[in-house]
Structures are given as structure tokens and as C-alpha cells.
């Protein structure tokens, strides 16, 4: 992971994912895929987040399914989902991108990337358009947001595990810091956020690859809030070692911030949901049930 982040060749690692068959998990069976529903594949996507895999495996799984659903043949190599002009996670190792072009989705090559975090997250400089296919209006950002929510949910769960382990091992004042109520109360909040992030992400998955904007908003809002709380608590409990390069926590917390800021963070999706609710004139329960 560190080698790829430092600009090393992602090829060998990518080759393993390609061989595994997971990249076509969401592609329909008649097109040679596994035909999994997004909700069924959700644990896989969260697992990628939990290991902070520095490759757009989840992006590519979704992109290949979208391309096949548009009756086209997906290109080989890593594909990222890049719905807007903001920084794109995994852009530094992407060969292709799906971008929004008017009311369509365009498949473009990646010519260059302006990095903003190590060599992974950055602004894409799109190259030639390989294909465009019509899709529902505003269809790319919701599914991208749901993917980020799943990655966040997986990473927050891992951060919880790491932080609880650390609190049980690290001794101060003659006992593990996990015995201190002030620390316990914070870890309880981290646990709550971990469950909330997972449930939020699952809400985003209930309509497959075409989430409603309301479901995507609930998913990405909840996951983004959890990312903020979880990173703060994990670093507070770990102390100085948590911000050192050689300790693995930073791989997860840096990724959490990248995924939170990608495809709209909590305020963007709060406004989308607020707009949707204001338009519906439903009470809370009728809107959500």
C-alpha cells in the first residue's frame, strides 16, 4: 500500500484483483459476471475500505457493471468514478474514468492527475472520450456517493477495532487507558458511529446501482459524519503514534477524509435531502418508510 501511494507500480496488485474475478461481481451473469446485487456485494466493498486498498477496485466493479448495462464492453485496467470537478479518490492509479457529460456518462481516458493527497487522490485531467452513454440524469454522483459510504463504513469499523485494541494495550497511570472512563465514553461513541455508518451505507444499497438521491443522501451524509467523528476519536485515543507514518492508523484516517470529501460531504447531501423532502410535503415517517 505504501509503495503504491509513493508512486510505485500498481500493476501486480491490480493483476491479482483482475484474476480474482471480483471486478465483474456486479456485472450480469449473461455478460460473464457474477450478477450480484449491490447489497450483496456491499460487504466486499466495505472490506476494501477496511483495508484501505489503494486501488479503485470498488470504482471499477461499479463502472464495469454500468458500462455493460449500457451494452458496451468495459476496458481493461482501473476505472474511477469522477462525477464532479473535485478531487477523485484513486485517480493517481486510474487508466480510465467515468465522468458526467451533460445528461450522459462519458468514459474517458485519464491523461494526467494533479495530486492532492500522496499519489492517490487528485484532480483528473481527462483525455479523449472513448464512449458516451445516456443514463438517468444525475445518475453517477449518487452511486459514487454510495460507494464512498461503503468504503467509509468498512474503514470506520477497522478504525474501531484498532482503537479498542490499542486502548487495551497502551498503559498509562498504571493501567490500560481502556480502563479510564473518559476513554471508554469516547470509544462508545466511536462504536455508535461505526454502526451508524454501516446502516447508512446499507440504505444506499437498497436500490442497486441506481440509488435514489434520497437514499444516496442518507448514506453519504451518515457516513461522512461518522468519518469525521471516528477519525477524531481514533487519533485522540492513539496519541502521537497515530500520526506517525509507520503506524497503520494514518492509512485509514487519511483515506476516510478523502472519501468523506469525495462526491459531496455531509452538507452537500443534507441540502439534496432537504430539497427532496421540501418538494415531497411528506411528514418524516411517510418520507422514510
Amino acid at each position, binding site marked *: 500500500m505504501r509503495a503504491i501511494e509513493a508512486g510505485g507500480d500498481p500493476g501486480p496488485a491490480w493483476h491479482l484483483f483482475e484474476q480474482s474475478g471480483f471486478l465483474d461481481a456486479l456485472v450480469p451473469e449473461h455478460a460473464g459476471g457474477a450478477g450480484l446485487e449491490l*447489497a450483496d456485494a456491499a460487504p466486499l466493498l466495505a472490506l476494501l475500505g477496511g483495508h484501505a486498498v489503494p486501488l479503485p477496485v470498488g470504482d471499477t466493479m461499479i463502472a464495469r457493471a454500468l458500462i455493460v448495462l449500457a451494452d458496451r464492453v468495459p476496458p481493461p485496467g482501473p476505472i474511477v468514478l469522477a462525477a464532479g470537478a473535485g478531487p477523485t479518490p484513486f485517480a493517481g492509479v486510474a487508466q480510465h474514468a467515468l465522468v458526467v457529460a451533460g445528461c450522459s456518462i462519458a468514459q474517458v481516458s485519464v491523461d494526467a492527475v494533479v495530486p492532492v493527497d500522496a499519489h492517490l487522490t487528485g484532480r483528473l485531467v481527462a483525455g479523449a472520450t472513448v464512449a458516451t452513454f445516456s443514463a438517468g440524469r444525475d445518475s453517477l454522483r449518487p452511486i459514487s456517493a454510495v460507494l464512498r459510504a461503503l468504503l467509509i463504513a468498512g474503514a470506520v*469499523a477497522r478504525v*474501531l*477495532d484498532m482503537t*479498542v485494541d490499542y*486502548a*487495551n494495550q497502551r498503559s498509562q497511570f498504571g493501567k490500560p487507558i*481502556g*480502563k479510564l*472512563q473518559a*476513554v*471508554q*465514553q469516547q*470509544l*462508545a*461513541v466511536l*462504536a*455508535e458511529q*461505526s*454502526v*451508524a455508518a*454501516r*446502516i*447508512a451505507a*446499507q*440504505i444506499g444499497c*437498497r436500490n442497486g446501482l441506481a440509488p435514489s438521491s434520497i437514499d444516496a*443522501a*442518507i448514506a453519504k*451524509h*451518515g457516513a461522512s*459524519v461518522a468519518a469525521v467523528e471516528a477519525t477524531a476519536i481514533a487519533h485522540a485515543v492513539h496519541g502521537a503514534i497515530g500520526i506517525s507514518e509507520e503506524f497503520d492508523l494514518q492509512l485509514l484516517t487519511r483515506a476516510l477524509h478523502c472519501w468523506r470529501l469525495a462526491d459531496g460531504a*455531509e*452538507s452537500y*447531501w*443534507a*441540502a*439534496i*435531502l*432537504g*430539497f*427532496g*423532502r*421540501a418538494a415531497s*410535503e411528506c*411528514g*418524516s*415517517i411517510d*418520507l*422514510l*418508510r
Partner: protein
Amino acid sequence: MFETLTLSPIPPEDEALRLPLRALIAEQTANMPLDRRARSWQGFDAAFSRKLGQAGYLGLTIPKEYGGQGRGPFARFVVVEELLAAGAPVAAHWIADRQSAPLILHFGTEAQRQFYLPRICRGEALFCIGMSEPGSGSDLASVRSRAEPKGDGWLLNGQKIWTTNAVHSDYMIALVRTSGGLADRNVGLSQLIVDLKAPGVTVRPITDLAGDAHFAEVFFDDMHLPPDALVGREGEGWRQVTAELAFERSGPERVYSSLILLDAWANHIAAAGRSDSASLRLLGSLTARLAVLREMSLAVTARLALGESPVIEASLVKDLGTGFEQDVPLLIGDDLAAHPDEPVEPELLRTLYYVTQIAPSFSLRGGTREILRGIIARGLGLR
């Protein structure tokens, strides 16, 4: 961790309860002002509870042989959700239906089940739960009220305080010491059913900061209890109390206490023609949090439906849920105050002021925030 909590849709047969119930609720709440509906599960109306019982909306999880509906926790979730979303007065049956009936079903004798459950299901036997005492709040194992064996029954002396609905209730299920001493902590405690209309009981209402008297102090003075006052086993009270906590801590009532205010404010900003992004963001962020909490509560309901007792998971939902309930009045108050030249209906303002004032209770009742977080920490393996 806590991976068993997962998205759990309401089964269609339980969802089907929703619309017929709405008509009954609408009839009841039609003339209730918002600030009374915001009393949520503290609104008391014994006639309405009996009406719900007659229509089959109480005792949903109680077997039919005891007068219940023989359905499951999802059916109860739908009914409770509809009642709370409308601000219907549910206090009269609330504790009996939520906790006392499952407790008696689980730990009671056959005679106790036959005696109490059908009346609870009809909304005719009102219960309160006697836990806190002047010296026992969060440290519940330190209760001093004591029932000594006397003849073939019990002699009860002591005091309970902050007992919700004691003034209106027929019975209290009291946690008292029946053996050992204070040093034995949670060993030697038992649950006794106390007839609050019997001699030896004094109930004094306590008025809260909003002017309501939903809780009370209750004194027991040489009160004689029959042998069958004991629920479950002598000395097992702590274990029995703990077993019922998952029922008490995960329901929609731990998420919806400010729902009347939220929905009324949503209507207000629509009527005021607000379309600025700050208003929409607040509406959206509160709705998004509610959406996740509702699914978390349903996820715990699914574990209850499987016969589990997910106490830690329920604590997690309650802590997050009550935090949301408390944020709602503060954020909505700030929003309305940020529009000082916009007229607001007095009914909405009264609702806002009431919920703002009572909101601290949301994370006190049924286990404080700090106690719940301690329980979660233990579940994480930290204690």
C-alpha cells in the same frame, strides 16, 4: 463489531397495520394542539388506551391465550411508530405494554399471567416501574427499599422517586431488597408487584420544569404484600431487570421524542417559502440522521424478533437516538431565531419551548448517557 445489526425491512403483514390505525389516531389527535402532542409518551388518556386495546393494538407481542395479538416486535414497532409520529397520548398503557407485560409473560407464574396480561392487553391495568430512590439513581444496585418475608407474604417499607406515571397507575413493579444487605449489591434484589390502591402506599406527584406532573414519589409504610406479589425468583431481580432493558432502550421512543417539533418546523419553513440552502441543509441533515436511527432501531427489532436480548446494541441506539432528540430543539430554535422578522405560529413556538425545556430528560430516563456508554464500552471488551 455489532455486525448483527443490519438493514431489516418491516414484513408486509406488519406494515399493513399502519393505515387502519391511522384513522383511529387521527380521530383522537384532531383537536390536540401541537404542544400537547409533543408530550409524546407522557400524554395520558386512559380512554384512548382502552380504545387501542379494544381495537387490538396493545399486547401485540403477547400470545393470544393471554388476550394479546400473538404477533412480533415488528408489529409493535409499526404501532408505536404511528402513535408517536402523531403525538397520540399513550402514557396510560405505555409501560404496561412495553415492559410489564413481557416481564410477567417471561418470569411470571401461570396465575400471574392469567390475572394481569388480559387486562393489560385491554388497556385496563396500568403499570409503573419503581426503580430510582432518593439515594439510588444510576447506582441502581444500592436500592434500600426492603421487603421482609412475613407470614407467607412480604412486609414492604421504603421509598421510590421519579416514578413515571405512578399517580395514574394501578400497579408498580418495584425493585426492592428481599435478602442480604447493601454490600451484596445486585444480589438479593427482587421484583414485586405492588397494588398502588392498597393500604400503606402514599403517592405524591412531582411537578417538572414544564409544569407537568408525570412522575412522583411513592412511599411504602409497613405494607403487607401477598406471596404472589413476587415476580420471578427471589434474589433474581437484577437479572430480570437487565433482561428487559433491550425492550426499553431500542424502540422508536428513543428516537422520536422531538418528531412532532421536527415535522411542525418542516411545515413552517415550507409555509414561509424558505428555499435557502441553510434551511434545506438543516431539514436534510435532521432527516438523514432520523433515517439512519430508524433503521438502527429496526435492526434491533429484528434481533428481538429472533428471541435475542441485544442489550448492548439497544444501548447504542438509545445513546445516539437521544442525542438526536436533544439536537432537534436546539437546532430548530437557532434556525427560527436566525429569522427574527419571520412570523411563527404561537403553537409551534410553544412546542419548541416545551421540547427545549424537557429535552435533558431524554438522556436521563431509562439509563443515562454515561451509564449507556459504560455498557457499550463493556461490550467492546474495555472493562
